[in-house]
């Protein structure tokens, strides 16, 4: 499956680069000092009449139940602190009482915009713990599902970002509904494959549960072609729209060093010029069989992050189509009886960490193994590293100096999913 690789950096070629800690970053984005997120408000201009405003947890554009406390001087944000935890369900604790196979449907609900990724992340960790290797067909199947899921997730991301800028009753709603229309096609595909439109429970330890129905691959290729054709619309909407430029260009420019410091990953990091993608740099599943072109932009602003997502969407469609044309034959699950996996590699007290590239960045699973005789192998402790949580930790650095209207654009460009932030 040889593919001609295009240049990785898709924006201006005239960028000057510097190297910090072995990572190549654009010079323009490296700023001398970051705003202090713990700023003492009594040191702020005593003449100013600051207003503390709680955005959320019930607010239409905090993408769920994020609460951001902002201090406003007029309409300019002086300080912003995000508070999380309003959607805490105790998923990690719950996982300690379940066997590996039982955990999959629960983590589905973490990042509810891309459930496939959650399943893949935990199951890869479980496979590492149990020493199970999924068969090649399952590997390719997982990669295809992950890429199609990435498209669906980025569609939601771009669409809701439009909502943030254009309102639920306005042009933003139009682009949102266009995005939802395309996402619907993907949900139909997943429904045909797994029976579920939202919570699939299709990955399992050692492979997949559902094999491709007849004709599914042809249908999927059609859908992907259609989405790629229509993705031009979203790009036109963002790139050729002066109002979108005014709202998003130069807003919340993220210093790549700050982004790395906060642990941000995915489109946020790539929008700031850091060429990092786990799919290419630490290939898992079947990503070693494809040559991935990782889109990187060097502007670092909200618009760049959205454009990275649109480029990624096209790239995902390309990769998925490529893999769909050559799905290897064979079983889709390594273990015959799925209920109780036998061979246990990881001994009690040993740990494993597996990270995958979810649409929002590095989605990691860390687990400490337990080999309870009664319950069977299960995690003594399971920790999910949600990319959105780390993205949100950027918020106090980004908001000061911007207006209240920009705060929603910034939150939208970070694309947090509170389900996985709070777990």
């Amino acid at each position, binding site marked *: 499956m040889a593919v001609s690789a295009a240049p990785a950096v898709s924006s201006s070629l005239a960028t000057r680069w510097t190297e910090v800690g072995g990572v190549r970053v654009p010079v323009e984005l490296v700023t001398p000092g970051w705003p202090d997120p713990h700023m003492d408000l009594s040191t702020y201009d005593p003449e100013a009449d600051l207003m503390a405003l709680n955005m959320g947890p019930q607010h239409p554009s905090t993408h769920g139940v994020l609460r951001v406390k902002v201090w406003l001087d007029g309409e300019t944000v002086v300080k912003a602190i995000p508070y999380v935890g309003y959607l805490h369900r105790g998923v990690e604790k719950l996982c300690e009482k379940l066997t590996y196979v039982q955990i999959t449907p629960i983590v589905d609900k973490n990042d509810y915009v891309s459930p496939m990724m959650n399943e893949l992340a935990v199951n890869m960790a479980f496979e590492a713990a149990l020493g199970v290797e999924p068969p090649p067909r399952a590997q390719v199947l997982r990669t295809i599902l992950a890429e199609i899921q990435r498209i669906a997730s980025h569609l939601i991301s771009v669409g809701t970002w439009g909502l943030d800028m254009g309102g639920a009753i*306005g042009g933003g709603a139009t682009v949102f509904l266009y995005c939802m229309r395309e996402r619907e096609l993907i949900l139909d595909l997943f429904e045909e494959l797994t029976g579920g439109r939202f919570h699939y429970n299709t990955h399992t330890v050692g492979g997949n549960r559902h094999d491709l129905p007849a004709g599914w691959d042809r249908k999927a290729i059609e859908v992907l072609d259609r989405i790629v054709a229509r993705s031009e619309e979203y790009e036109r909407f963002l790139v050729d729209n002066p109002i979108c430029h005014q709202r998003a260009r130069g807003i919340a420019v993220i210093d790549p060093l700050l982004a790395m410091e906060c642990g941000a990953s995915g489109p946020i990091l790539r929008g700031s010029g850091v060429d990092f993608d786990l799919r290419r740099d630490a290939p898992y599943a079947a990503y070693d069989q494809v040559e991935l072109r990782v889109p990187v932009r060097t502007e670092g602003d909200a618009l760049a992050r959205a454009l990275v997502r649109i480029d990624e969407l096209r790239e995902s469609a390309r990769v998925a189509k490529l893999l769909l044309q050559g799905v290897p034959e064979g079983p889709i699950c390594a273990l015959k009886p799925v209920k109780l996996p036998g061979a246990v590699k990881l001994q009690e007290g040993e740990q494993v960490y597996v990270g995958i590239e979810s649409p929002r960045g590095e989605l990691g699973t860390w687990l400490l193994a337990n080999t309870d005789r009664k319950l069977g192998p299960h995690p003594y402790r399971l920790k999910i590293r949600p990319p959105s949580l780390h993205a949100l930790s950027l918020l106090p650095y980004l908001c000061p100096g911007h207006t209240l*209207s920009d705060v929603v654009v910034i939150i939208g460009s970070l694309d947090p999913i509170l389900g996985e932030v709070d777990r």
Partner: protein
Amino acid sequence: MIENPWLHGLVLGLVVVAVVMGVAAFSIWYERKFAGLLQNRPGPTEVGPWGLGQLIADAIKLLQKEQIVPAAADRPLFLLAPLLVLTAALVPLAVIPWGPGLVGADLHVGVLFALAASSLMLFPVWMAGWASNNKYALLGGMRSVAQGISYEIPLLLSATVPIVLAQSFRLGDIVAAQEGLRWFALWPPGPGTLAFGLFMATALAEANRIPFDIPEAESELVAGVTVEYTGMNFGMFYLAEYLHTFIASALGAALFLGGWDMGPLGAGLHWMVLKTLVLFAGIFWVRWSLLRLRSDQLMELCWRWLVPGSLLLVMAAALWVHLT
């Protein structure tokens, strides 16, 4: 028709208000259907044929809802604001000429009256923002006052262009001056066309429509000034917004598109209504395809470009009149 001028005014006024209120309510359906078609979805379909009964269902829903007044709100102001908003939105209807002789009051300062009355809306909006005792409402109220005051200037200046060209403030005269398809939107080509665009754009801002709807800005200010209002109190704000947009379209049609006159195709009420609805649809189209500007960008746009631009247009129109 009726000898007594007072009675004439009263009857015509009642007829116009009743009809226009009906049209404004209908226009909510019109907009929802329009937006639905624009967004690849059917829009309202359930109530009545083509969902036409939807607005009746909506009105019943709003009427039976509880009217909640926040405990910390300024009660009299809070309850007065929606009434005044609707009143301010209805007042300009008095001078809009729907057809030859079909006008509530053909004032000799009709244009000024309509624009002044519609900008009265700022007071109740600010009242609502203040009385709600809610930070989002306060910010929305502040924004809408700043925006309203700024955008009145280019609105009035762009409406001055047809006044200069027709050499009258009376809306009837302005329409009469455009008889025979000599619409001010087309002739004189430069200032007339630009002033028409400018008028419609600033009217969007006055009516708090996207891309200038920052006082409402539901994605950042939740719902701006209306955030604490429930039931029909909210409904009045909603209706006032539609009325405001409708009146802006009607004024645009009268000032720039020749009003009731359609040259060789005759003249009459239907042409005026048709032109108004076309402009109305144009506003919907803009609303459902554009994003929202930020408040500081909105002010910059107004003071940097629209105000000087509209002044230049007035000068150009005056030169045209002087030279021809």
